[in-house]
């Protein structure tokens, strides 16, 4: 397999060496290091020796099962109902704490439940917070990736015109990208406050009908608020990538289309969009990977709360590895995240491949 790359290009390799060396030192080595640490009980600081614990960290993170709970009955065997006719169920903690009959559920906590007939099916997990962070991260990616990509494309189409002062618009749309995400998060925290700008505007436009709500303090709106802010913040970056893609499309194609009498939509559908294929793949993968790495907004705006509704995988990795000094647990989360992002990227590659 002697190719040109390995045989006749010493100078090229020499030029690449600093880059490769740094990537190896700061990305490849730490990755294998994280993989190794996730199999130990390594602490951030501790006089105790590091021990190999196998897959224990992964077991602690991922253990999940379903517990069926029958409703409570009185002496006659009749179901006990409260005033509203709801069934009474024994508490989950009676199964998961010090109950020798159910050793498989020891130390687990309720994540959510549903009812099948009178039986309550309770999903219990050893690490509910991690599962919630996984769910939040996926929800974030599912919304942010398509919406941010589409908005960025829309903006790129808008500013890809020869108008006077178009650069002002380009600068305005791109500005949030240049500002530090920490600063942006702090500002949006004020916007979202109970007596903040957003509530004032909504209240003014609805003539006082809209009552101010605490966007980041309510578990139903907190993650949505962060999604909206994140989309706004990074949309300019992807707009620029789309723009570069738009400008590689040859003007002769547009001229040909207009000679053929194509409508605006047809021009976009049959000229612009096919020309943006590779850009689209790039934008989608970059947004997905960035969205999976959601951390700074959470750290500044909500700290994962309220009730874990905004906690994310990366936030958990940092919180455990550094905050709780559990490097091995944090490493295990990082490895899981890596596998997750890798498989999703591979699926995206497969779905968007050249047919």
């Amino acid at each position: 397999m002697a190719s040109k790359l390995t045989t006749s290009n010493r100078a090229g390799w020499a030029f690449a060496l600093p880059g490769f060396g740094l990537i190896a030192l700061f990305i490849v080595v730490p990755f294998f290091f994280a993989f190794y640490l996730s199999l130990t009980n390594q602490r951030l600081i501790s006089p105790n020796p590091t021990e190999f614990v196998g897959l224990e960290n992964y077991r602690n993170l991922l253990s999940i099962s379903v517990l069926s709970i029958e409703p409570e009955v009185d002496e006659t065997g009749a179901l006990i109902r409260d005033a509203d006719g709801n069934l009474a169920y024994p508490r989950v903690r009676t199964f998961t704490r010090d109950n020798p009959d159910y050793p498989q559920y020891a130390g687990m906590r309720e994540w959510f439940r549903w009812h099948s007939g009178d039986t309550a099916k309770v999903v219990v997990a050893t690490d509910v917070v991690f599962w919630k962070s996984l769910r939040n991260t996926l929800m974030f990616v599912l919304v942010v990736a398509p919406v941010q990509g589409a908005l960025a494309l829309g903006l790129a189409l808008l500013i890809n015109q020869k108008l006077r002062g178009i650069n002002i618009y380009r600068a305005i749309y791109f500005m949030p990208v240049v500002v530090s995400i920490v600063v942006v998060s702090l500002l949006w925290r004020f916007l979202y406050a109970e007596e903040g700008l957003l509530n004032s505007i909504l209240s003014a436009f609805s003539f006082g009908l809209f009552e101010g709500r605490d966007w980041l303090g309510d578990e139903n709106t907190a993650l949505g608020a962060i999604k909206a802010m994140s989309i706004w913040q990074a949309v300019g970056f992807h707009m620029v990538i789309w723009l570069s893609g738009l400008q590689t499309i040859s003007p002769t194609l547009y001229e040909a289309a207009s000679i053929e009498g194509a409508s605006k939509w047809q021009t976009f559908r049959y000229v612009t969009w096919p020309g943006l294929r590779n850009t689209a793949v790039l934008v989608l993968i970059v947004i997905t990977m960035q969205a999976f790495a959601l951390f700074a907004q959470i750290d500044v705006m909500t700290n994962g709360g309220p009730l874990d509704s905004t906690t994310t995988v990366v936030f958990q990795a940092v919180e455990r590895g550094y905050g709780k000094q559990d490097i091995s647990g944090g490493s295990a989360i990082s490895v899981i995240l890596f596998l997750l992002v890798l498989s999703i990227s591979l699926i995206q590659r497969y779905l968007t491949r050249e047919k």
Partner: protein
Amino acid sequence: MKLGLTFGAALVASVSWASLAAAQTELSMWYHGAGNEVEANILNGIVADFNASQSDWTVVVESFPQESYNDSVVAAALAGNLPDIIDVDGPVMPNWAWSGYLQPLTIDESIIEGFLPGPKGYWDGQLYSIGLWDAAVALVTRQSTLDALGLRTPTLDQPWTGDEFMAALDAAKASGNYEYPLDLGMAWTGEWYPYAFSPFLQSFGGDIVDRSTYLTAEGALNGDAALAFGEWWQTLFTEGYAPGTSQDPADRDTGFIDGKYAFSWNGNWAALGALNAHDDTLFLPAPDFGNGPKIGAASWQFGVSSASEHPEGASAFIEFALQDKYLAAFSDGIGLIPPTTTSAAMTENYGPDGAMAVFYDLTKAQALVRPVTPGYVVGAKVFEKALADIANGADVADTLDAAVDEINTDIERNGGYGH
């Protein structure tokens, strides 16, 4: 030839520099107070006095912002770059001592006999750190508020009971004059939660860990007392007595002064601002929920790092800094509680008739240090999250159970933290 001469001269010069420096051995010191000019001036004053007072040591200070200070020390320890003298937050000290970052102090212990208990950092029977001040928390309100609501003024001997406290909050709520009756400072995340709120739990009879063994939190953090505390804690927010975790930090800083809150649970560092705004500001003792009124103790303290090759010099500096005039200077400069009666008498605010003398008495009467264990660092984080979750409506028993499990797993994985 010429080159050789120059080289030789340079060599001679560098050797003579080295011998000059050897007269005074340099001691490096790290401090958490970067950005606070008053604090830096006081510390630099002490350092200058110390360097001038003897000819063996020169202390050189490097300051860090408080938010990144602990991270810097941990990173330096991992990299083997610790300075000689470090300051350390009281409850974190056992963790660093256990991890081998600190070595015991070799100061004359008779000097610190008269100190309040909070500033003395003992771990494993040895003195590892000593503070030049302590901090305390009080229930801040105004005499006019108490009068208007018809409430008894609680004293150290007769603090409010839990029922009296809740009756006071009810009265404030019923008056309709306040946005919320009570400001707990939920906007201050981090160490504020365990520092300010775990004393409530302790007053109920619970704790973050079982202090008899330090090996489990079972029963302490999820026993009957802790459940009662948790239910009470939750009602503070569900019944609208106090603003929750999304409190605006600006309201925390000025809400009480602006009259938004009838009572504020706040530290001595904020006391001067309240006094300047309202002459009739009162600092009331913590209510007694059954197991005695409690407040937190221990603030930043000085210790000697294990990497120091000159612990005797480092200890000499710390001993030097413990003079009453410096303790008083810190108190006057940034409002901290002086740790001795003699230094308190020298201060503006903590003397016998000082405006904030009540904090000294509060600390003396009610202070309880946070659990003295290396595991506190993790326990504090778990406690903070549990309290935030309960405030946001999570099930009390389940949340405390989960917190217990997390703390116990951590203790187990650390081989009992040396207890």
